[in-house]
């Protein structure tokens, strides 16, 4: 087997003010022709910068050193920008995470492809159109002739990601690097992209896959390298990593994936640690799951009832965003709403929160009318209902400190002064943030910390109902595990009802008691989460379930 990429003792640092700031420590990576290798780790583990160093895009500030660094037999350690340019696209294709950002919004798909295909000598390629069509066909885009003159925003998320992959493979590179190629996508679209990559792998193409999710890479990779804090902690065939992990960190990553079997148990180790002591526990791993506290559900106490909700885009006459949606939520219960983007689940959340009025139907909170009443009547009751938004950062006023952010939710119940401070400290403690965080600004927090602040804020006024709109979809699997554990613990301890909206079926299965499956504004299936997910009756639910990547 020929070696395509050979790296020995790679070290990458971003020196600043005399500090080396090393982010990758002595990494070895070898990829043979025809192999699919996955580099797995959480954000900040150094996996992306490693991948970028392979195409010479680690950045001008990066200091890279290696004992050996060969790409297809060429020593690239002293490469200049011109040398790298010769390599990019031709030998190595690179697919970035976010296709919406990575494609130029002002250039048509045909133009992006012709950029990627390049010129032949001085001239434009004579059969550019045919080549572009063939390229789009090869990534499974139906009706390519219609797509070519379109702009990226006219394509759906899945098609956009395919188009991006098409630009990366335009010049038939020997190695394709995909950096979190499916992270921002719905499960069904994610599956299509993974299938596409799997097809390429079967056709003998070489692939380096970067991801934070072991479940995503499990079907695709021959070999997995687990990375933590800039080091490879474990390496081996995929099957061995998944079934017989040797390193506690790998085990931690595996446990963090929410699924049916994790229900009722914690996903993260009991203590929130970022760097488990590595040497001591190697080889002595037992899979011990720590159970979550049990919750009390009072079926007779309906906190939320929604009857026949209807909402159309752009008023009457528009397409249905929500069409005849009816459901109840009991005290202490967790209800999940799943569906792809555009299925109307966020609109349901906004109607429940009283931010959007339904055209027809009613929402009752604690048995009393909540929808279509004046805001002045709603205001005093708002404290009983809190929102955890998907993007915690944008839900914080950037000028505010954590103390003010969390404290503001106490305005409505009139808690000020010393009592407010005490409650803020109490809820911050509940989400395991120390007093030192009080004075921090949102930008100074990591993704997981931000989401924990958002949870603390939501629980602060002791709400009866919590609406969580995709609260973990922007997070790494390991951080997601911590956040889900916190949410489950606090929900059980406080008896708060939870309306949990997500496109991730694993997360919903893990966290909720009942589930609604939404498609095109309608509820197509509803019931206990075990029943619905183990014996789905609607074909749409089945297709959603098939798309979920599992650890097998």
């Amino acid at each position, binding site marked *: 087997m020929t070696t395509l990429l050979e790296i020995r003792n790679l070290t990458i640092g971003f020196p600043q003010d005399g500090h080396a700031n090393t982010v990758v420590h002595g990494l070895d990576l070898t990829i043979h022709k025809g192999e699919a290798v996955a580099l797995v780790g959480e954000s900040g583990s150094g996996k992306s910068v490693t991948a970028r160093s392979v195409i010479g895009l680690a950045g001008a500030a990066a200091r890279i050193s290696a004992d050996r660094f060969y790409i297809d037999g060429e020593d690239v350690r002293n490469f200049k920008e011109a040398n790298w340019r010769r390599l990019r696209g031709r030998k190595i294709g690179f697919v970035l995470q976010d296709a919406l950002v990575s494609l130029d919004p002002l250039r048509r798909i045909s133009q992006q492809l012709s950029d990627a295909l390049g010129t032949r000598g001085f001239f434009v390629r004579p059969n550019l159109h045919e080549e572009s069509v063939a390229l789009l066909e090869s990534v499974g885009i139906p009706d390519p002739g219609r797509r070519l003159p379109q702009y990226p925003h006219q394509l759906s998320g899945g098609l956009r990601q395919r188009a991006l992959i098409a630009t990366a493979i335009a010049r038939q590179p020997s190695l394709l690097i995909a950096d979190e190629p499916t992270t921002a996508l719905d499960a069904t679209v994610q599956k299509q992209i993974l299938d596409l990559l799997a097809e390429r792998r079967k056709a003998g193409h070489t692939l380096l896959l970067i991801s934070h999710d072991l479940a995503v890479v499990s079907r695709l990779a021959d070999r997995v390298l687990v990375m933590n804090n800039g080091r490879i902690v474990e390496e081996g065939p995929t099957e061995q990593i998944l079934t017989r992990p040797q390193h506690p960190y790998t085990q931690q990553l595996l446990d963090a994936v929410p699924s049916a079997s994790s229900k009722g148990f914690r996903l993260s180790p009991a203590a929130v640690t970022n760097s488990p002591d590595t040497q001591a526990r190697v080889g002595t791993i037992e899979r011990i799951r720590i159970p979550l506290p049990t919750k009390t559900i009072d079926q007779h106490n309906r906190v939320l009832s929604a009857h026949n909700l209807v909402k159309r885009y752009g008023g009457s006459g528009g397409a249905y965003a929500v069409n005849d949606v009816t459901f109840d939520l009991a005290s202490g219960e967790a209800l999940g709403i799943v569906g792809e983007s555009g299925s109307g689940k966020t609109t349901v959340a906004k109607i429940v929160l009283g*931010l959007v009025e339904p055209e027809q139907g009613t929402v009752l909170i604690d048995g009393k009318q909540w929808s279509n009443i004046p805001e002045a009547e709603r205001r005093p009751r708002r*404290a009983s209902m809190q929102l955890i938004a998907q993007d915690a950062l944008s*839900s*914080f*006023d950037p*000028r505010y400190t954590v103390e003010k952010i969390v404290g503001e939710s106490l*305005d409505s119940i009139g808690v000020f002064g010393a009592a407010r401070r005490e409650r803020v400290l109490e809820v911050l403690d509940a989400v395991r943030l120390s007093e030192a965080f009080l004075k921090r600004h949102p930008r100074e927090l990591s993704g997981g910390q931000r989401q924990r602040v958002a949870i603390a804020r939501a629980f602060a006024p002791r709400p009866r109902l919590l609406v969580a709109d995709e609260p973990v979809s922007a997070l790494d699997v390991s951080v997601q595990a911590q956040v889900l554990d916190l949410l489950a613990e606090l929900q059980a301890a406080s008896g708060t009802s939870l309306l949990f909206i997500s496109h991730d079926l694993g997360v919903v299965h893990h966290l909720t008691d009942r589930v609604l499956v939404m498609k095109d504004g309608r509820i197509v299936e509803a019931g206990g989460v075990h029943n619905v997910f183990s014996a789905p009756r609607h074909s749409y639910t089945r297709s959603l379930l098939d798309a979920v990547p599992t650890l097998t």
Partner: protein
Amino acid sequence: MSVSSTTPHGHANRWRHTLAAVGAKPRIALPSLFLLLVAIATIWPQLLTAVDPIVADPLQAQLPPSVDHWFGTDHLGRDVFSRVVYGARYSILIGVSAVAIASIVGAFLGLISGLSRGIIDEAISRFLDVISSFPDLLLALVLISFTGPGTVNLIFALGVASVPRFARVVRAQTFVIAKSGYVEQAKTFGLMRNVLVIRHILPHALAQVPVLATIGMGTTIIQAAGLSFLGMGPQPPAPEWGAMLAEARNYLRVAWWIGVWPGLAITLTVISISALGKRWQLAFEGRRQS
């Protein structure tokens, strides 16, 4: 926050620090120093010159720069240096006041427009379109032709002419922030609308106004000088820079110094303000993006 430290061997050291600072960041330090001089001339001109800028002495007319008259004397024998120093007061006063009017009225209209939407927004926006469809200077000239020349009228005219610039930016900002995640979140807390606007919308919507005002001030001073040159501003014998240029025009061949110094004063003041304003804007944008 570090409080400026006072060390035992104070002054010499501090001067050296100041000089080092000028050497290190001349693009910030030089305009700052010049504007400091302008500020002194505005607040306390006696500190810089003991000569009266108004008193004429025909015997001393059109003397070139010398030790007695640093910038020379004009056609009526008035000391040009003294007049340039006292003239700062007019330019700065007109610039600051006109920008103050423009930014306060503009920010207010922008906020109302951005928050209300609908018919009120439409009305305000079209009104602003009408104003900005005239070139600033032309509009100011038209206004002055109604109100008559004079310092106050000049301030008013220039202020009105640059209202749209402020209103547009504030309106756009308000729109964006009213749709932001944290405003939606604050709604779910049950905050009163007024509280919500004051807490979460106002500070962000107005954040750019000081920067805009600084940059706008440079433009306004030039326009003020231009209108004064045409005789629309402070009336003679007031030592306004633009008016001085107008008077000097007839003597440019025989006594260059009468016109050159006020011209230089205008140029340097405007360049200094713009340079600092641009710096500030860059720092501001950098902070937003990081």
